[in-house]
């Protein structure tokens, strides 16, 4: 039975290599221990004295995998492990793919850049993979850059300033940070909310995750405020709340048929099912299903925009997943028409791009 003190000690001692924390979005419905037993069939699930902590021990391909699950951050649960990343990832991936109430966090590019106030990545990987949505004659179909050093972010920005901002999409970053109060921390994060850390302060690791989750949560919850809801009026008619969510691209969609075929292929990473209906040479309407959550989602696609409608039962992470994967596979410089949502996505007021960098 793990206690929070033990979590701290094990993080610092780090006997099994770097500490891994996978953050999953969990739609809790019922007793959490029972839910964990359903998520990990056959696993040994033990509750701790702390009502938010659970120990989960399971086996994957003859390899023991154990997690300490912390659900203190409502909706976004931390799955901590000191086991190898690969089997742990497989166990969680299987769970996410097989269930409607679990999902990864889908961190927008700018959320990865701004991991901790006043710091900049000392290692980063930007991976733009437009091969499936962009034709071969596109100026940049793929762009992968891996940089290490204090100026890593500067170089990526430089590429963007030469007109290739749409081909920059942060995939993972790592920081080496010191804080006079919290201690030292080496922290790596990828865009699906998988954290790998080493340092002398578990609190520091948790605070960093908390900040990332808070920004992501804000984006998801703002999206959920836009869910379309219809309430009947007493004498007839209805009142509508919510709105469509407009996504603006910084580039035209060069091949709409290709774009639609891939977006609605039911395949990873979008996992959208749909039968696009062309309404003109450059616009289409789609009644789709987000297969991650099994809910309907409506989309309109135009020459350089997409419009998304979320309905009752839908979830803000449907928008997050779509937007992040579009950043990664089509346009790293997309924006949202709604200023509030756009600020939550890009972490900068409209018209500004990213945070100011301090003078060296």
């Amino acid at each position: 039975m793990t206690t929070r003190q033990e979590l701290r000690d094990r993080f610092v001692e780090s006997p099994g290599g770097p500490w891994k924390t996978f953050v999953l979005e969990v739609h809790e419905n019922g007793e959490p221990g029972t839910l964990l037993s359903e998520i990990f069939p056959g696993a040994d699930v033990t509750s701790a004295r702390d009502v938010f902590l659970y120990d989960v021990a399971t086996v994957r391909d003859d390899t023991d995998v154990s997690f300490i699950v912390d659900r203190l951050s409502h909706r976004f649960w931390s799955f901590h492990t000191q086991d190898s990343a690969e089997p742990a990832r497989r166990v969680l991936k299987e769970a996410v793919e097989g269930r409607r109430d679990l999902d990864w966090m889908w961190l927008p590019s700018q959320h990865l850049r701004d991991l901790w106030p006043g710091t900049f990545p000392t290692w980063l990987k930007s991976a733009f993979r437009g091969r499936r949505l962009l034709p071969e004659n596109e100026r940049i179909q793929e762009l992968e850059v891996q940089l290490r050093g204090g100026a890593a972010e500067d170089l990526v920005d430089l590429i963007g300033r030469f007109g290739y901002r749409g081909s920059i999409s942060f995939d993972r970053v790592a920081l080496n940070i010191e804080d006079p109060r919290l201690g030292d921390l080496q922290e790596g994060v990828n865009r699906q909310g998988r954290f790998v850390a080493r340092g002398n302060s578990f609190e520091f690791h948790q605070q960093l995750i908390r900040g990332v989750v808070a920004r992501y949560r804000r984006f998801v919850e703002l999206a959920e405020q836009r869910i379309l809801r219809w309430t009947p009026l007493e004498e007839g008619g209805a009142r509508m709340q919510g709105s469509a969510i407009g996504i603006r691209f910084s580039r035209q969609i060069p091949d709409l048929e290709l774009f639609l075929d891939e977006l609605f292929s039911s395949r990873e990473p979008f996992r959208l099912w749909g039968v696009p209906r062309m309404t003109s040479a450059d616009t289409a309407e789609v009644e789709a299903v987000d297969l991650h959550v099994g809910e309907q989602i409506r989309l309109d696609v135009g020459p350089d925009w997409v419009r998304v409608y979320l309905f009752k039962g839908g979830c803000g992470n449907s928008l997050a997943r779509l937007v992040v994967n579009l950043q990664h596979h089509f346009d790293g410089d997309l924006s949202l028409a709604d200023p509030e949502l756009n600020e939550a996505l890009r972490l900068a007021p409209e018209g500004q791009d990213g945070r100011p960098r301090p003078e060296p």
Partner: protein
Amino acid sequence: MEHRLLPLNAFIALCQYGDLWPATLADVGYRLVGLEVPVPVRDGTGSVVIDALAFREEVNVNLAGEAKSGANVHEDQARRYAEMDPQNVVYASSVDVVMEEPALTVEPVYVCQAEYVDRISLGLERAGVDFPVVSFSDSELRREGSPFGDSDLEAAFGGPIPVPGPPPRYVAVDEESADSEFDDHVRAALVAELSHAKPVATISVLAERAIPHLALFGQRARKQLARKVEDSARRIAEADPDSFVFGPRTGTRSEAIVEFVRQPEEADRRGRTQIYQAVARAARPGRPRRAEIPGQTAFDHVLDELEAASDDTVEEELQRETTPEEDAR
């Protein structure tokens, strides 16, 4: 979306922030308070159903939108719009009036596609009423006809306002929509149910899913819509018997159902995707599959072989042992 429904959706779009269309009415302070709102006229001899109603509480103005699907103005209806009692409008919409002054007013506005604006204006003239008309195309919208009584609103429509394309599809179908218009919606509802590993879906469940704005309609219209959903479900099942079986109402079954033949969620990852793709393909028979970008796969083979022939993998392995960031994969 049917062209018929564009004007109603255009009015709604002008009241809602968040979309690509300009929220011109919202910018001025108008809030959408009702759709399809029945309001008795002043003399009590009849009523008018306001297609879309917005209210600006700072000036107590009810903006009553009549969405014209075509070019015809019903003169009697236009005159009833002119005779609406603002107090009745407030009762019908249940909107809270937060200021005693200025006095409540109703301002009717007609909304139509640009190609019909001349005939709509002419029709209003014949009816002897003096309303503003908001017309729109795929590239702009503008106020024509009489100016708005609300000077802020008039200023907001001071010139053409660009739009990026058609308005959003908040109300995508209604009881007058052609039967075939329901198929995309019902098919998506079926797939949503399928993705939850349900063995069967009833028509009422499909109708709730396929028509999220069902609350907008009265009982009679809902029955018509349920019938259209049922007909659509039957058509879809007949066209794709590998996926769906339609079960009509019987003496012991009060509503029709659709049974699912294949359960994608029970298949492995690849099989699951293939079943969903098969449902999509059945919806557009004859459309050739476009599996890849020409030449791309061959080029990828070259790159794969180049990767295999290079020594980088050893270095990557070494790096994996020393950097925590690699473990984040």
